[in-house]
């Protein structure tokens, strides 16, 4: 398994500002993912972040809004830029050890006022 931590665990931000979320894994992994979970909803994949390459974004998500860094095999960041209240969600990172083993972090609960 993998132990994943996220910082911050929660934040309240003003509209128009940006927040960077950190994801740390206790082992080296190639594939990392960022998800968004809006209140009372399921998880939606934002992007795939593999070390050594640009992040791949899903339909409806763009790099200017959600820039991602993946500087090494244990760490990634997701920035939510120019926030609006519609960005209020839980943001989760996950890692894939094998095709059938995907583990999730505890999430970052973001509220935008």
């Amino acid at each position, binding site marked *: 398994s993998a132990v*994943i931590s996220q910082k911050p665990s929660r934040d309240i931000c003003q509209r128009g500002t940006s927040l960077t979320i950190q994801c740390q894994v206790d082992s080296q992994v190639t594939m990392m993912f960022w998800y968004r979970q809006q209140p009372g909803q399921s*998880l939606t994949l934002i992007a795939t972040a593999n070390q050594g390459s640009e992040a791949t974004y899903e339909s409806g998500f763009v790099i200017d809004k959600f820039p991602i860094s993946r500087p090494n095999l244990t760490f990634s960041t997701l920035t939510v830029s120019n926030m609006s209240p519609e960005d209020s969600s839980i943001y989760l990172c996950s890692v894939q050890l094998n095709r059938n083993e995907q583990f999730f972090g505890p999430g970052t609960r973001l509220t935008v006022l």
Partner: protein
Amino acid sequence: GESVGLHLPTLSVQEGDNSIINCAYSNSASDYFIWYKQESGKGPQFIIDIRSNMDKRQGQRVTVLLNKTVKHLSLQIAATQPGDSAVYFCAALSYNTDKLIFGTGTRLQVFP
């Protein structure tokens, strides 16, 4: 498009009863399915998985059934306990992608 959906948004059961959570998927290329449990304030936690070449898999108190003909899977929890209260998601992987597609989620409430 591809979708994974659940039939019931909320399921209330009495402690000790069996729970059945259902899920439907649309992509015929889905070959691997996972059930996750998400407790309040936490990330999804793996419960059990099943490959498309199987129709049943059992774990500790949990069983997953897969019906590929009608693109349906279910999670059965035996002797449901208060600690089982959570939101349950099914998720599917397709053989041509490594992206997990999640269902809408079912909230399981266990009352005494």
